[in-house]
């Protein structure tokens, strides 16, 4: 099977937010109305129940030009996914589509993935069991893997009327992306294709109209070495030696260390 990717050409987005409605509709996510944000943006960022958010950024460029920058914000589905590395329960994995998914049965709601995520996308949702006891599960966009399995495109892509969102064969899309980039450079000199190689690329690739930092995205994200060591070496070894429970405790300690190493989230979500 050829590799497919989701491509987001933000210069084609007209900010209609059909992608947000389509996502909630398909994934049966509850509404979470927010206090007045002071801008057109509905949520500060994606949450456990709002898997994509259209960001609106009133950006005064240094050359004096004004741009109202829109971005469809959702999981980028990193090839080297920090959330997956952070998970002590192997609940997070890559599917054959390249989508990064969370197995709700395995997820214990520890929140390491929330801390670990390079793009501040994963969040914990709180549910109640039949006895009224609260429990938590990590949630985020899964690229509509349930649709991909049926040969359908992600719900957000289907809803998009300007082809700002497309889902197609990777090689074709990336080649087209380069052509698009050349076209939009005239208006957006800082435009770039955001497919960070420090995490071996993403399955959801952006054409951004300005530098990543303008959108609150890290310029050169990497999965911290400690996280890789933890997941790929310490965990398998530790589980063998000390058992799963002990390793979860160790994990908490390491997770704190990882956060320090990351120095918090760069820039945060830049919106009005």
């Amino acid at each position: 099977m050829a590799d497919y990717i989701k491509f987001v050409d933000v210069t084609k987005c007209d900010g209609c937010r059909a992608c947000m409605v389509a996502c909630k509709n398909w994934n049966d996510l509850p509404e979470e109305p927010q206090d007045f944000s002071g801008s057109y943006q509905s949520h500060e960022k994606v949450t456990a129940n709002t898997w994509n958010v259209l960001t609106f950024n009133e950006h005064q460029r240094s050359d004096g030009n004004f741009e109202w920058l829109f971005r469809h914000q959702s999981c980028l589905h990193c090839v080297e996914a920090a959330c997956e590395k952070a998970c002590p329960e192997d609940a997070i994995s890559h599917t054959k589509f390249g989508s990064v998914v969370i197995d709700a049965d395995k997820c214990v709601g520890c929140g390491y993935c929330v801390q670990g995520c390079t793009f501040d996308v994963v969040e914990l949702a709180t549910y109640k069991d039949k006895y009224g006891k609260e429990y938590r599960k990590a949630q985020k966009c899964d690229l509509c893997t349930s649709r991909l399995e049926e040969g359908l495109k992600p719900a957000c892509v289907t809803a998009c009327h300007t082809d700002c969102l497309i889902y197609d064969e990777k090689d074709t899309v990336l080649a087209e992306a380069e052509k698009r980039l050349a076209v939009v450079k005239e208006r957006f000199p800082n435009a770039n294709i955001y497919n960070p190689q420090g995490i071996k690329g993403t399955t959801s690739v952006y054409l951004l109209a300005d530098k990543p930092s303008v959108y609150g995205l890290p310029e050169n994200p990497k999965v911290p070495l400690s996280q890789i060591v933890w997941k790929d070496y310490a965990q398998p070894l530790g589980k063998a030696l000390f058992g799963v429970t002990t390793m979860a405790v160790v994990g908490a300690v390491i997770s704190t260390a990882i956060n320090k190493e990351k120095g918090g989230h760069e820039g945060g979500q830049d919106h009005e």
Partner: protein
Amino acid sequence: MTNHWNDLQHANVLMIIGANPAENHPISFRWITKAKENGGKLISVDPRYTRTSQMADMYGQLRSGTDIAFIGGMINYVLENELYHKEYVANYTNAAYLVTDTYSFEDGMFSGYDEGKRSYDKTKWAFKTDEDGKVLTDPTLKDPNCVFQLMKKHFSRYDVDTVVGVTGTDKKMYLDICKTYGSTGEVGKAGTILYAMGTTQHTVGTQNIRSYAILQLLLGNIGIQGGGVNALRGESNVQGSTDFGLLYNNVTGYMKTPEATEVDSTYQGFLDRITPKAGYWVNTPKFYTSMLKSFYGDNATKENEFGYHYIPKLSAGKNYSFMRLFDAMYRGELEGLLLFGSNPAVGGPNARQEKESLSNLKWMVAVDLFETETSSFWQKEAGADPASIQTEVIFLPACASFEKEGSVTNSGRWMQYRWQAIKPKGESKADLEIVHMLARKLKDYYKNSSNPADLPMKAMTWDYGEHDHPDIDLVCREINGYDMKTKKQVKGFGDLKDDGSTCSGNWIYCGFYPEEGNLSKRRDSTNEGMSNFLNWSYAWPANRRILYNRASADLNGKAWSKDRVGIEWNALEGKWMGHDVPDFVVTKGPDDPTFKDPFIMIAGGKGAIYSTGLNEGPLPEHYEPFENPMLNSFSSVQFNPAVQFGEKEMNPQGDVSKYPIVATTYRLSEHWQSGAMTRSLPGLAELVPHMFVEISEELAKEKGIKNKDKIFVSSARGEIEAYAMVTKRFKPYKLKDKTVHQIGMPWHFGYKGIAIGATANHLTPHIGDANSSIPEYKAFLCDVRRA
């Protein structure tokens, strides 16, 4: 639309003015994006930088209510720099027509004004004719009394500096826009103008559109693929509504409603009055009689003037439009009101006053999906005292579009049939069912009456089935029309007769349902050329996709551009052929003297640069809105002299000294109209949960307002409280001699539903356009302060 949605992709330049399609007609951007990918340039002209402006290549800011100044300046630029399409203007428009000497224009006033009546004697503006009534022309366009020279003189006053001093547009940007849009005057190029309620909802709304039409005729942009004057209708079927005579002053197919006058006292007298001597409208009697036959069937006979006397007549000169109905309610002159999907307590101008007027009704029936602010106007939460309101209010639950079958006609005049997707909820019914049941009850109620006043109800045919659910197919067949004897479907409006042998409920739709079936159900997406999709649905008239498409070809009948072929004269076949249904007599060839007259609906066949049709003059002239921040720079006439005033108490006027800020209202992608549907949908309420007012950073600083603060906005009509959205997307205007601020706000909000908030229309004035009476929602004065 003269053109249609898919056709937008063919434009070289698109100018969006008085519209915000990225937010209010999002799907249009599928085609606008394609135009851009093909190298097209997009211009957005708006008081506020919108989502459309962000998609555009150029953004021109203009103060609300100054469209004519803006376009007048463009017309002047095009004329001065000779960017216009010379062959087109000379041959396809009335530029060469000579105007009588009684025409004059001085200091903002045309000749023939009657101050007492606030109206003009339009005969003073007539064309000069010879003894046979033929219009005199000067093909060289040099006669000082020809339309071209009069227009040139008129718009020469719209020089760039005066214009930007009125509109507040950045001068350099304005010139760039003039140049870019003016480039479409080049032979073979196409420019399109898209507009919506930002254009129409002004006291000069109709003249705003006239100014677009003139600019488009000058640039040769009418009748061609990728051109046109394109109204983006504000509701999925508003095109259908107006087509079917929903306005008081016309019946179906844009024919006039009779008046209670001596002339109209006989059918023949009425027909003689409304039927022009030339142009396609000479067929009016065929269409009118066929309509009467559809209303009254066998009860419409030659002897009883085809039932003409059954139709209600308007009191001569009386205005029955939306605001005047509320004036009448205010005065207690109306007993009852039927509201179908209408929410004036949120959507009407000076909405609080309109809401108060409802309590003077004896009864009101509201048909809607949800209980609205209007249907609950008597409740405590509406600020009313239920005990003191005597109005009997009946609420009928209606079902949504997905729960019923029928057609909608989109802005591109495509009548698209839709099928029921899900069963209606509860007891809700389709509008058609509700009207059907009501009509059957009424007919039954009056069936034994001998009162002559009840004759129209008795004479009316209502043969759509004997059950509560009507047979919609019978309705469709009647709209198209059939032969009264054979009952065979009529092929097209060319076959309609004035002798009572045919019926047709709406002549412009005649042809959508021939013997072979209902063509609005067609879904063949084959592109046979120029994306006209002739086998997808049905476009009125006659399945024509681009109106006036004869003008897409040159004087010899060849396309102006081989990339833009509408129809062409095929000498071998002896007919017009191409990618569209010809808007011309198919076999009319170069030997015919009217071969070069593309505008077949107009007497003379020439596009109207100059028109005696509108009430305030034959050429558009800038007047300030009812409430305005400055003196008129173009003349000493401040306000449109042909606007009629309604009930004074309904329309208090604010002055700039007390209300120095210009305001406008608009819609958002996420909500729709008065919000009656969208504010009750959780998914949409989540996206825009709060009422807000957009204000510039500069105004916020002046007033000590921070983003997210609660503020009060007040006008002469009332005051509302809402959140301040401080934004870079509004900027103060630097006008001729002062700086003026503008704010804007969505008009979607009310107190019912999930997302609730203050109603913007508590602020808007109760005055409207001099021709259409549409309210001036889009420009008024206010003040703001921190709450």
